């Protein structure tokens, strides 16, 4: 049994590390392009609800595994981005992926992923707004 577990762990570890490694490379490259001035400008010019909508849309179209977003989120948090925007980015990145839309359309018909997209958009927006309100009390 232990041998079986170790074989499974080993197989999964190297495969995941390759994917995560590539994802982290992409994320740190992308986060190196984000600077404090552009974040401050974004905070001044764009209202919070709109920031949340942008964040979830960016999350929806972002490629790659779930873990790649963390280096970018750390940087955004350091620059003082609202917690609601961070929640919207994390949730948006995983709730709908462009590739899964086609898979779901194939399995359930095209109406299912379209409705799921709209539902995800609303739910993520509400989660982002709730987090931005509660964030001040929790953190």
């Amino acid at each position, binding site marked *: 049994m232990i041998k079986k577990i170790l074989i499974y762990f080993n197989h999964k570890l190297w495969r995941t590390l390759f994917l995560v490694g590539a994802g982290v490379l992409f994320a740190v490259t992308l986060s190196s392009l984000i600077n404090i001035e552009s974040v401050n400008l974004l905070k001044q010019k764009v209202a919070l609800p709109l920031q949340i909508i942008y964040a979830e849309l960016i999350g929806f179209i972002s490629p790659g595994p779930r873990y790649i977003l*963390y280096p970018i989120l750390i940087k955004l948090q350091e620059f003082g981005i609202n917690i609601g925007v961070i929640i919207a980015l994390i949730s948006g990145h*995983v709730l709908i992926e462009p590739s899964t839309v086609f898979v779901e359309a194939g399995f359930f018909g095209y109406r299912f992923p379209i409705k799921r997209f*709209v539902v995800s958009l609303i739910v993520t927006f509400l989660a982002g707004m709730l987090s931005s309100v509660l964030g001040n009390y929790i953190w």
Partner: protein
Amino acid sequence: MVKFIKKLGPDIKIAILLILLSIILMLTFQVNFYNLMSSNKEVIIKIIYLTGVAIAISTAIHFLIPEDLARKHLKNNKLIYLFYATLLGVLTPGPVYAIYPIVLELRRKGVGNAILVAYLTGQTIIGPARAPFEIGFFGLKFYLFRILLALIMGPMAGILFIAFSKFWPDKKIIVA
């Protein structure tokens, strides 16, 4: 070459695509690779270490939680099961592609689409393998808050799906 690429798994293809995108970004914006790696050394090491922890957690879940857990507990097609489906989704490890066989099986057994939406929402939003990353980077409070949010978002997604389906019902698809 094309045959070789076709043979690769989807995760490997995505990894290669991400490496290519990174190279394009570095060349376009003249990012120095050495500086990039050294300035992000701590985050990179932390992510690699946390990946090992996350894989250990998902391996433990793979061997401890039976595969038919979701199938067993989502047989009934009632509204109360939206919450139950979300909770089971949160507990189900693995990438989203890995759970489509479960989702199809549930559909075959007559589980409604709204419950499947709640299950997919719970599964994708958070999971046990994310714990090391989120606790490691943002703290325990953040992770607990995210679990709570997931448990609210899943049933809400199911309820909204039901509401939309009243105006735009799903087409009947026969799942073989």
